[in-house]
């Protein structure tokens, strides 16, 4: 594949260049299309479903099957931290910060008292 050859020679900065263009593409397209299209179309629905499925897969995998240091934290504690954090988040609107701190705090406490 020609793209793979490009990446082989350009290294990770070449990958960054391509991903940066791809990311900006959607931002710029929004400026061009703004006010001209409805975002109720099927393509938008499909794109957002794919994006959310991908983000769901990413988040679940990072939490359940992490690679690196986080894997040293027991899965039970990771899940407990998620449940506790979600409970704080859903208890009252606008509690993003406290819920983040409580979840990360539990994981840190595990590391500290291990």
């Amino acid at each position, binding site marked *: 594949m020609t793209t793979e050859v490009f990446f082989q020679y350009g290294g990770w900065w070449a990958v960054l260049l391509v991903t940066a263009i791809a990311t900006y593409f959607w931002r710029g397209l929004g400026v061009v299309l703004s006010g001209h299209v409805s975002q109720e179309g099927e393509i938008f629905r499909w794109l957002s479903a794919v994006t959310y*499925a991908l983000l769901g897969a990413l988040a679940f995998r990072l939490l359940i099957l992490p690679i690196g240091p986080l894997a040293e934290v027991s899965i039970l504690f990771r899940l407990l931290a998620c449940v506790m954090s979600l409970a704080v988040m859903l208890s009252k609107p606008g509690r993003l910060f406290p819920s983040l701190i409580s979840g990360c705090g539990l994981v840190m406490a595990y590391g500290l008292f291990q």
Partner: protein
Amino acid sequence: MTDQTPTTYPNQSFKFALLKGMKAAFLGPAFVLAGGMIGFGAMAHAAGMDLSLTLGITIFLHALPGQIVFVEMMSMGIAASVIALAVCFTATRFLTMTLTLLPQIPQDRYMLSRFLSVHFLAMSSWTYCMRDFPKIEAELRYGYFVGMGLTCWLIALPSTAAGYLLTGHVPQWITYGLLFINPLFFLLSFTEVPIPANRVAIVFGGIVGVLIHLVLPTQSLLISGLGVGTLVWFIDFVIRRRRLKGQR
């Protein structure tokens, strides 16, 4: 959508709005973004990425999910073109974000700067702008948006560097917390997704993604994203069709 005729902005009001946006950034989105970027820096360090590339990713992508996909897939040794495709998909949400935000800003002579300004857009600043725009005069919105976005973008860089440099120098238990920020942040932000089909996509994408990861770790993200996302969209499409027919 734009109900305003092109207006010539007095420079004063733009500056005023810019400062207002910057101030508002420090009251909310800047902290959220800084936390995420610290976590990203920590992840990049743990994945063995060098500092300059890590900072480059923050400057030029400025989109946390894409940044994390990049680092995660790279550390797993996944083909670069697959990484590019996955990052591209995570960025599609910017289209929805710009399409909902920009029509609230009057069209004006700043077309070029408008193309520049969308690079600073992040989920956090978008949420705050969507919330605050109805309360702000139309001609002040652009400055507010730029002030908030720019502040967030400028904060992202030192935050990433801090996360990167801290990891390895702080005790391991702090590293755990830093690495946990982003996955947890994604999980929490899922609770605010309004469309039911997208919520179904998140949960099934997550479950299928974990299962595929056990068999095909390098392909799990793209397969579960494209496969589950398309399936959920199709089922939702059929259900909506049926409902429409039932109404007739």
